[in-house]
């Protein structure tokens, strides 16, 4: 891989890793709630079933990507990245400014545990099944986002493998830390990660959309880094402008 390719590969792998950390932490919280309440059997069964569905989707849809003309692929993925990335950036800016409350893994864990407990009171016989379904849904929904991010940052330059490696490393890291601490990973600076990922995905979005429309960016792949700086400065500036006192945000 030459130097110029690294200017896209490094942000692609970094964005895939960071975004996946955010998603896997959220899925892990739900799986842990299921495991704490009903044991690891339904948690693992739900997770394994969801991973199997995700793998099936990748196997079925993956080869189709190679048949789409590169320019059309870049345009479609670029627009989807703009929608997804700018959505994340908007939310991260609002949370950073204190307009929206920060995502709280402890609260998510408590909410899932409460929901499962209440469901268990209503249907005690099928609680294992309901708990497994909870783990299945969490892993499936967060996993779909991971798959999109990997495809989005990797497909435009044939770096699906590298992006997938970044996502797999994130899964391994979260599972390893989760297995050690055995509680919701509330110390993960989720909004900071989301802010960074929003910046990277929005930059990829502008880059691929432009290339899909036939724009040759000056500096080629290096333009991606310039876009990242522009989005970072804009996002940080917006968060400062919109910042509210802590009491008002609560």
């Amino acid at each position, binding site marked *: 891989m030459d130097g110029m390719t690294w200017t896209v590969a490094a942000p692609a792998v970094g964005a895939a890793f960071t975004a996946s950390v955010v998603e896997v932490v959220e899925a892990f919280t739900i799986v842990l709630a299921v495991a704490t309440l009903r044991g690891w059997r339904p948690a693992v069964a739900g997770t394994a079933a969801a991973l199997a569905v995700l793998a099936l989707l990748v196997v079925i849809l993956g080869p189709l990507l190679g048949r789409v003309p590169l320019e059309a692929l870049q345009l479609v993925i670029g*627009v*989807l990245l*703009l*929608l*997804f990335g*700018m*959505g994340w*950036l*908007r*939310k991260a*800016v*609002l949370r950073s*400014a204190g*307009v*929206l409350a920060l995502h709280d893994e402890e609260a998510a864990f408590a909410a899932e545990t409460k929901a499962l407990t209440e469901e268990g009171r209503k249907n005690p016989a099928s609680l294992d099944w309901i708990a497994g*379904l909870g783990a*299945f*849904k969490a892993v*499936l*929904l967060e996993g*779909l*986002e991971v798959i*999109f991010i990997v495809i989005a940052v990797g497909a435009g330059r044939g770096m699906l493998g590298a992006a997938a490696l970044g996502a797999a490393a994130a899964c391994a890291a979260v599972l390893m830390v989760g297995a050690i601490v055995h509680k919701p990973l509330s110390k993960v600076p989720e909004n900071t990660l989301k802010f960074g990922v929003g910046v990277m995905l*929005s930059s990829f*979005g*502008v880059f691929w*959309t*432009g290339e899909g*429309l*036939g*724009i*040759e*960016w*000056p500096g080629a792949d290096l333009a991606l880094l310039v*876009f990242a700086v*522009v*989005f970072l400065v*804009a*996002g940080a500036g*917006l968060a400062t*402008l*919109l910042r509210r006192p802590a009491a008002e945000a609560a």
Partner: protein
Amino acid sequence: MDILKEVVSELVKMFVADARLSVAVLVLVGAVALLLDVGHAAPLVGGAVLLGGCLVILAAVTAATARKR
């Protein structure tokens, strides 16, 4: 079927978290495509409009949400 509904709803939410933002981005991309194809603008002008437009949309939509809350 409930799971399928949730998956579809989650997929839609991934890209349409804020309807104004999504519509504005789609309009912007369409406008840049027209500018390049019909208006025969220089590609870099289209690129600048795309980047600048995204920043304006981000600022406008974020500020509008903040004002409402």
